[in-house]
């Protein structure tokens, strides 16, 4: 009787895992797939993998997994239930992913935006700051009040980098431009994002940028007749007449490449930081802008892709006047990864 129950239960587990696919791929998202931002784009990458490989793969995703103790269990569950490749898509999953990677050496793990690796754990991220350079260029040309508003989430290097990159690009167009930052202390809070946008607009900003995940700020900008940029996804639906473009996260090429590597047996632990050239950062169609701005934007994209322009080419001084990058040099990855200072022209506090 006990044996029967055991076999039945084991059968249940196996039934859940038995399939004709060569590879089961798991995805762990920090937010809901419907956030239309960060997690949504990762899911688009997942769908692209399914499309590319058809029956050879089967994908699973778990959404809204908090970055605390639950993450470890979810990742382990995926590893233990036959998934051979697992993508964990948020910084806070770093330690749990590493721990589970050690426990399951045959499973391959890919961690987004982290820095700890192992033989079976790769890291990957995208050079979103390249996209920021493009939107900084556009904003620089579109602003009439010379004030750009920036809805920022949390003061981590990723966000600081984006602010700096956009500011540097805008000030290249006109050195009198300032960028006002408002921190909302959350990645996703539509109410707060809308409020921040309105506050920025009321203080004179006529172009709004954001590093938060919902379209609320963009919507507020549209309703106020102010230009803005979408974030992570093309948010044109929310601002049909005022979205200039959006920096979209395009994970499909990377996910397809890594899946292929696992299927071919050539997968190795790497650290990938792809940008516009690699296709990981894609700009949404340029809309609602005059032709000369459009041309400048396209040129900026081409220049970055070809390497002719680096968003952090010196000389770069921070707000206190200290020179961080000398003339003729570019900021190296180390400086970019640890960036915790603002360039000249950024207004707003930066918690140390």
């Amino acid at each position, binding site marked *: 009787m006990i044996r029967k129950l055991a076999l039945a239960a084991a059968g249940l587990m196996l039934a859940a895992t038995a399939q004709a696919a060569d590879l089961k791929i798991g995805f762990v998202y920090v937010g809901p797939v419907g956030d239309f931002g960060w997690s949504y784009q990762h899911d688009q990458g997942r769908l692209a993998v399914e499309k590319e490989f058809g029956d050879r793969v089967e994908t699973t995703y778990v959404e809204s997994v908090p970055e605390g103790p639950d993450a470890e269990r979810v990742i382990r569950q995926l590893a233990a239930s036959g998934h051979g490749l697992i993508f964990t898509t948020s910084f806070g999953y770093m330690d749990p992913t590493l721990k589970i990677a050690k426990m399951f050496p045959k499973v391959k793990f890919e961690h987004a935006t982290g820095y700890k690796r192992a033989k079976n754990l790769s890291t990957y991220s995208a050079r979103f700051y390249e996209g920021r350079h493009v939107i900084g260029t556009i904003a620089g040309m579109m602003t009439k009040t010379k004030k750009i508003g920036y809805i920022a989430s949390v*003061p981590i290097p990723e966000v600081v980098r984006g602010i700096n990159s956009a500011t540097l690009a805008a000030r290249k167009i006109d050195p009198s431009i300032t960028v006002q930052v408002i921190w909302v202390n959350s990645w996703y809070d539509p109410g707060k994002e809308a409020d921040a946008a309105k506050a920025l607009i009321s203080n004179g900003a006529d172009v709004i940028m954001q590093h938060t995940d919902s379209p609320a700020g963009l919507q507020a900008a549209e309703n106020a007749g102010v230009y803005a940029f979408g974030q992570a996804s093309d948010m044109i639906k929310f601002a049909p007449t005022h979205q200039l473009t959006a920096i979209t996260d395009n994970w499909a090429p990377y996910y397809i490449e890594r899946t292929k590597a696992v299927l071919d047996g050539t997968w190795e632990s790497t650290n990938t930081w792809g940008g516009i050239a690699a296709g990981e950062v894609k700009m949404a169609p340029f809309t609602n802008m005059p032709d000369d701005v459009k041309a400048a934007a396209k040129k900026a994209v081409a220049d970055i892709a070809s390497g002719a322009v680096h968003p952090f080419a010196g000389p770069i001084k921070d707000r206190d006047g200290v020179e961080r990058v000398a003339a003729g040099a570019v900021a190296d990855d180390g400086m970019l990864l640890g960036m915790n200072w603002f360039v000249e022209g950024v207004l707003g506090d930066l918690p140390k």
Partner: protein
Amino acid sequence: MIVLEPRPQPSRALGLLSPVIAIGLTLVAGGILMALMGRPPLQALEIYFFQPFEEFWLWLTLPADEAAMWLYTPSEVVVKAIPLALIGAGLAVCFRANVWNIGAAGQYTLGAVLGGWLALGAPEGASGIWLAPYLAAGVLGGMICAAIPAWLRVRFNANEILVSLMLTYVAALLLDWLVRGPLKDPAGYGFPVSKDFSESFVMPVLVDGTRLHLGVVFAILAAVALWVMMGRTMKGFEVRVIGAAPRAGAFAGFSRDRTIWFVMLLSGGLAGLAGAIEVSATVGHLQPQISAEYGFVAIIVAFLGRLNPVGALFGAVILAVSYIGGENAQIMLKLPKAVTGIFQGMLLFFLLGCDTLIRYRIRLALPGRA
């Protein structure tokens, strides 16, 4: 029209049965929901509620080498139940006194903060005995947070529900500020995490290959101790009387104010302890997200356990199962996370409804009838 007839005595049978009936009703309602969502009801319910128990059974009965893999999920249920039970037991006592501590989440957070502050400030290579002061700091942190609504209630008659609740937001923002500022790990690339706690501040794991840790001992001890206190000591009697009949308690010389202080500090201290334990055992450093919402779920746990500290242990296990089942349902059935909240809310509704059966008989009568 619903007519309630009081029973001459509260029904003891229903006292034990009402949680069972409530769970049963939740399963039925849940099954209907699954069917409406196009998922196989029985399979969905099995994944949500029964799988961890099945796996536990397998671990018990299979030979050693095959059994090992089945221990993980049951052990995770216990790991998740530990903070729920600790907080739930304390809240059970608090609610019995008719003091509504809704802010356990804030007390949990402050306990984690104070413990973490100690752990991060301790000298390198501190030995294992530091775990004791770490946990004590957790208790203290929770008590400090609970003292505010207690004091404001006693001194100014401010509603403790609202004060304790507002403090949950304050505590969360304080933690956020600390890990982005004073306590941030300088080597952490600017991310809002503190340095990892050193070995001596991590809760010892009891079973290899799992996360089952010493906290389970604390949870069981606390539940039993509180149960003994409530049932067999003068203090417990005092708490129960103040809760059920405050005027009678006043006549008996029991001080309402002292009771408020006592139960708030007790439940706050336990919540703070849960916070410190959970951070130490499952996270290992301070970060903005430390599952403080356990403080709210523990309210359901307390009711599920019929406001009995030992009952809270069982309530915690059931709720932990619903969480973990929810995750598995996401993985295996592609069910959205929101469904777990629906289950938990329904469970509490049915519980509260069934509890009425203990004191009353329900009759449906036409209006106007005697």
